[in-house]
């Protein structure tokens, strides 16, 4: 009976979406980018006059990151990202508090395996290096602070699975707090220099160089450290109980 109801409810939702919603959205791939906000962002100029951006040639633009998604996330909508980081922070704190309130303090023990333990020693530095690469090159290639931090946290998880004595120490908490504070300090510096919170106050350089895009790589490095430490804390809280 429950399943029949479920199929009915899901069917009504699908009928509504396909019947009412599909006709008013553009067909797949048929998007006029000139009419959208994204056109200004892709050409890195929110004023009326613009020139087409060219890789490794255009310089001193509004925002110098080659990855346009990064330039939206960390430059044009940076305040939004600050809020997002705060939401993740609140979730991590909530997980920590709720996990420490559990009555049965049962630590999850894994069966130690020699092959996993030795191969972790080989693979772990590469995982951490790859995570750091992802968030340092967030303005040039796919990725950024969030995937890079998650990769680092996965390295910590691998360490936890292979070694029963391993514990995430308080260092992770300090890293998280100072990285979060660093993001706000960058914002306040923008306010002091340019008059706008989270303004890109450094020179933006040539599109496609490693040292370009002003504060974007710095902010993404902070976010990478913060997310890595935060997710390591979440995993560790869930394990320690």
């Amino acid at each position: 009976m429950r399943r029949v109801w479920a199929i009915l409810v899901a069917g009504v939702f699908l009928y509504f979406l396909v019947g009412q919603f599909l006709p008013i959205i553009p067909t797949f791939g048929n998007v006029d980018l000139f009419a959208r906000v994204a056109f200004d962002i892709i050409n890195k100029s929110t004023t009326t006059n613009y020139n087409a951006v060219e890789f490794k040639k255009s310089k001193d633009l509004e925002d110098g990151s080659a990855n346009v998604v990064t330039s939206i996330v960390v430059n044009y909508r940076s305040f939004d990202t600050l809020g997002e980081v705060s939401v993740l922070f609140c979730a991590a704190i909530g997980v920590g508090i709720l996990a420490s309130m559990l009555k049965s303090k049962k630590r999850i023990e894994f069966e130690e395996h020699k092959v996993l333990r030795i191969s972790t020693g080989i693979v772990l530095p590469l995982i951490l290096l790859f995570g750091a690469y992802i968030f340092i090159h967030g303005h040039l290639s796919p990725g950024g602070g969030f995937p890079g931090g998650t990769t680092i946290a996965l390295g910590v998880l691998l360490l936890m699975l292979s070694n029963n004595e391993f514990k995430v120490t308080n260092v992770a908490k300090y890293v998280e707090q100072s990285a979060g504070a660093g993001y706000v300090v960058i914002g306040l510096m923008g306010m002091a220099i340019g008059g706008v919170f989270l303004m890109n106050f450094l020179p933006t350089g040539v599109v496609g160089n490693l040292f370009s895009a002003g504060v974007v790589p710095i902010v993404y490095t902070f976010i990478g450290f913060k997310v890595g430490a935060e997710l390591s804390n979440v995993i560790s809280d869930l394990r320690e109980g």
Partner: protein
Amino acid sequence: MSNIIYYVSFIILGIGIYGIVSQKNLFKQLISLSIIDTAVNIFIVALGYVEWGEAPIYSTITPVANFVDPLPQALVLTAIVIGVGILALGSVLLVHINEKYGSLDPDEIRDTREVVE
């Protein structure tokens, strides 16, 4: 037939709604919520696709802009991170519920509460 990706995301959304309504285990309902999250993300990214557009990154392959809409992708990046937060917090809350009532079935939890009161 070009709209097939929209139908795919709607079908995944339907699977999620079916899971929330039909399952009795609260953890399975949380996973269904996560599936709905994924479906909405697929839908939003699909809204920004431009035909023959490349990934919105200036590189040696695409030195001049021929891109899909980057704005939905940026919004989805935010949504994914918040989805992770919801999943972590929700699962810890479910551990609490399981510790207090010894079950994750809403009906059994209701029965236990009535006995306690």
